[in-house]
C-alpha cells in the first residue's frame, strides 16, 4: 500500500498554527485523492488539537511538539508528541472558569470531525493521535444528509490503559497525585533525598505516603514534626547532634538517622494546622538562604492547593446534595438517575418532583464543566423546581426561560434541557426538549423512537413557542434521557443511543439500567459530565 509521511517540529512560542496549515497545504497537494470534506475535517481537528496544546501544555518555558502525518489509501493519521506537563493536570486546569466555553467545545469538535482521537503518556511526553478513515464512500463532495447522520454518532476518546498512575476524574485524586509530585519536585529543587508531606489523620496521628503506601506514626511529641507543627516559620536543623533546641529538650528527635532537617507547618485558610512539609538527611547540612526561600514558596503553594481542594470538595458536596436523595414512588412507574461530574462539580443535573398526578422530571446540561457551570446549573434547577410541582410543562419552561435568559446571556452560556411531566392517569408524558435531543423511547417489544428537538437551548435567545410532544407510556415502556457525556463512553463504531436502548431492554428495572450505565462509565475515560435519567412503566 502506498504510504506518505510528513513531519514537522514546532516550538511555541514563536511558532504558530500557520506552520500546520502550511504543512497540510503540501499534504493536500501531494494527495489530491483526499476529498475536500476529509481535508476539511482533518485540518479542523488537527488545528484544534495543536492550538489546545499550545494553549494548555505550555509550562512557562514554551512547548515543543513533533508532528507526524501518515497518509495511505485507507486513512490519514496525525501523531502529535509534545513536551507539555505530562498527565491530565493541564486538561483539568484548562477547564477553570475563563477557558470553559472554548476548551470544552474544542475537544467536542475534534471528536465530531474525525474517527479516532486518543491520548496517552509516554515518559515525559504527551502523545495525541487523530485518525480519519478514507473510504470510497467518503470521496464524494460534502453531503449535508451524510453530515447530519454522522453528527448523531460522535466518536469517543478511545481508552488506552494508562502507563503511569491512573488519573481518576476526581478532584481529591487529582490533588493526591499533584501532592504526590511535590516531594519529588522538592527533592530536585533542594537536592535532598527524603521529603515528606506529613498530615494529621482523623485519629490525630501522623500519616504520610512512602513509595505509594500510607505510613501512620504516633503523634507522641517525640518527633521533630511535632515541634514543627506548632512552631512559627521554617524550622532548620543543621546538625541534630549539636542543635541547641534538641540538646535543651525543646525539640525531640526519636530518629537517630536524621542529622539535618528542614520543616514548615501547613495550615488551612482558617489557620488550622493540618500537617508539615519536611525534608531531612542522614548527614549534617546547612541549607542556604535561597533553599529556605524555595522551601517557603513550596509551603505557600501547597497550602493553596489544600484550600482549593477544600473549596472544591465543599462545592462537590453541595451539588451532590441537590440531586434527588430518595427514591420516588409513582404508582405503576419507576424512576432512577445518576450524575457524575467530570470535575468536582459540573453543569449537568437531573431532578424530579412529585405532582398531583405523577412526576415532573428534568435533565439539563449547562455548557461547559466545573464550578462556573455548577453555579448556573444550581440556578436552573432552583427555577424549574419552583414551578414544576404545580405548573404545566409549557408554563414551567416559559418561566424558566424568562427568568434564566438574562443570567445565561450575561454568563455567555446556554443550557440544553429536557423537562417532562408524567400523567399517571393517562399514562402520558408531556415532553419539552430545549435543544438537548438525547432521549429515546423504547417499547417492551424493542421499538425505539428518538426525539428530535426544534426548540432552542435556554440562553440562546428567547423561544416564542415550545414544541411539545405527548409520549404515550404503555406497560414496559422506558424513556431514556442522557447528557452528551454519556455518548462518549461508547465506542465510535457503536450507536450510543441504540446501545443504551438495548441495555434498557435487557434490564429488569430502572435502577438496573442506571447501575449498568454507571458501570460502563466507571470503565471509560470520560472528559465530560455524564448524566442519565430513566422513567419506566412497570
Amino acid at each position, binding site marked *: 500500500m502506498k504510504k506518505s509521511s510528513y513531519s514537522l517540529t514546532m516550538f511555541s512560542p514563536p511558532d*504558530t*498554527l500557520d506552520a500546520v*496549515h502550511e504543512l497540510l497545504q503540501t499534504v493536500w497537494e501531494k494527495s489530491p485523492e483526499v476529498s*475536500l*470534506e476529509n481535508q*476539511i*475535517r482533518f*485540518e*479542523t481537528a488537527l*488545528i*484544534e488539537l495543536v*492550538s489546545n496544546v*499550545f*494553549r494548555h501544555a505550555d509550562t512557562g518555558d514554551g512547548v515543543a511538539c513533533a508532528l507526524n502525518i501518515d497518509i495511505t489509501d485507507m486513512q490519514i493519521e496525525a501523531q502529535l508528541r509534545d513536551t507539555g506537563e505530562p498527565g491530565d493536570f493541564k486538561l483539568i486546569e484548562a477547564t477553570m472558569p475563563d477557558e470553559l*466555553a*472554548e*476548551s470544552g*467545545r*474544542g475537544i*467536542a*469538535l475534534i471528536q*465530531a*470531525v474525525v474517527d479516532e482521537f486518543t491520548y496517552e503518556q509516554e515518559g515525559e511526553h504527551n502523545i495525541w493521535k487523530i485518525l480519519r478513515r478514507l473510504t470510497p464512500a467518503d470521496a464524494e463532495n*460534502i453531503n*449535508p444528509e451524510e*453530515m*447530519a447522520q454522522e*453528527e448523531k454518532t460522535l466518536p469517543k476518546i478511545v481508552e488506552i490503559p494508562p502507563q503511569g498512575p491512573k488519573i481518576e476524574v476526581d478532584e481529591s485524586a487529582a490533588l493526591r497525585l499533584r501532592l504526590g509530585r511535590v516531594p519529588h519536585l522538592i527533592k530536585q529543587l533542594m537536592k535532598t533525598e527524603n521529603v515528606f508531606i506529613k498530615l494529621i489523620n482523623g485519629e490525630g496521628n501522623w500519616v504520610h505516603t512512602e513509595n505509594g503506601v500510607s505510613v501512620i506514626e504516633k503523634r507522641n511529641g517525640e518527633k521533630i514534626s511535632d515541634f514543627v507543627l506548632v512552631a512559627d516559620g521554617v524550622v532548620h536543623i543543621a546538625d541534630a547532634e549539636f542543635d541547641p533546641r534538641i540538646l535543651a529538650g525543646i525539640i525531640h528527635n526519636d530518629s537517630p538517622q536524621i542529622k539535618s532537617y528542614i520543616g514548615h507547618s501547613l495550615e488551612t485558610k482558617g489557620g488550622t494546622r493540618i500537617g508539615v512539609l519536611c525534608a531531612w538527611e542522614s548527614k549534617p547540612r546547612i541549607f542556604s538562604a535561597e533553599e529556605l526561600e524555595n522551601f517557603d514558596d513550596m509551603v505557600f503553594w501547597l497550602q493553596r492547593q489544600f484550600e482549593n481542594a477544600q473549596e472544591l470538595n465543599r462545592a462537590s458536596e453541595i451539588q451532590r446534595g441537590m440531586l434527588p436523595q430518595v427514591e420516588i414512588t409513582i404508582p405503576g412507574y419507576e424512576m432512577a438517575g445518576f450524575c457524575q461530574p467530570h470535575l468536582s462539580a459540573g453543569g449537568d443535573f437531573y431532578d424530579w418532583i412529585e405532582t398531583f398526578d405523577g412526576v415532573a422530571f428534568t435533565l439539563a446540561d449547562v455548557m461547559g464543566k466545573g464550578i462556573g457551570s455548577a453555579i448556573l446549573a444550581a440556578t436552573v434547577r432552583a427555577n424549574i423546581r419552583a414551578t414544576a410541582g404545580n405548573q404545566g410543562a409549557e408554563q414551567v419552561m416559559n418561566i424558566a426561560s424568562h427568568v434564566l435568559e438574562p443570567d445565561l*446571556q450575561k454568563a*455567555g452560556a446556554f443550557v440544553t434541557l429536557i423537562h417532562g411531566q408524567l400523567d399517571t392517569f393517562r399514562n402520558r408524558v408531556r415532553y419539552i426538549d430545549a*435543544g438537548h435531543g438525547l432521549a429515546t423511547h423504547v417499547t417492551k417489544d424493542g421499538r425505539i423512537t428518538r426525539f428530535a428537538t426544534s426548540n*432552542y*437551548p435556554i440562553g*440562546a*435567545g428567547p423561544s416564542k413557542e415550545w414544541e411539545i410532544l405527548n409520549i404515550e407510556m404503555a406497560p414496559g415502556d422506558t424513556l431514556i434521557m442522557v447528557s452528551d457525556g454519556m455518548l462518549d463512553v461508547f465506542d465510535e463504531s457503536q450507536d450510543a443511543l441504540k446501545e443504551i436502548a438495548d441495555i434498557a431492554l435487557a434490564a429488569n428495572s430502572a435502577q438496573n439500567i442506571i447501575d449498568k450505565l454507571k458501570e460502563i462509565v466507571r470503565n471509560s475515560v470520560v472528559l465530560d459530565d455524564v448524566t442519565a435519567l430513566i422513567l419506566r412503566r412497570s
Partner: protein
Amino acid sequence: MVYAPALRQEIVEQISAGYNKIVIDMSGVDFMDSSGLGALINGLKGARQAGGDLRIAAPVEQVKLVLKLTNLDRVIKTYSSAEKAFDES
C-alpha cells in the same frame, strides 16, 4: 486562534457604538476553530442583548462544517452575502 480576540473586540466596539445588527462577512475566512466560535457566540449574545442580531455571510465549507457539528448553525443564521443578511421587510 489568531484573529478571534480581535473579532471579539471589534464586535463589542460596534455594539457600544450603537449598532445592533451585525453581519460578519466570512468570505475571506478560510479556517475557523473553537476560539472563533467563541467569538461569534459572544458577539451574538451582545447583539441580541442590544435588541439586534448577529448573522454571518458567505462562510466557506470548513466554517459551515464547524457550525453544523457544534449545532450552532441553529442559533447563528447564515446568508449568501452580507447585503442579504438583514434584507428583510
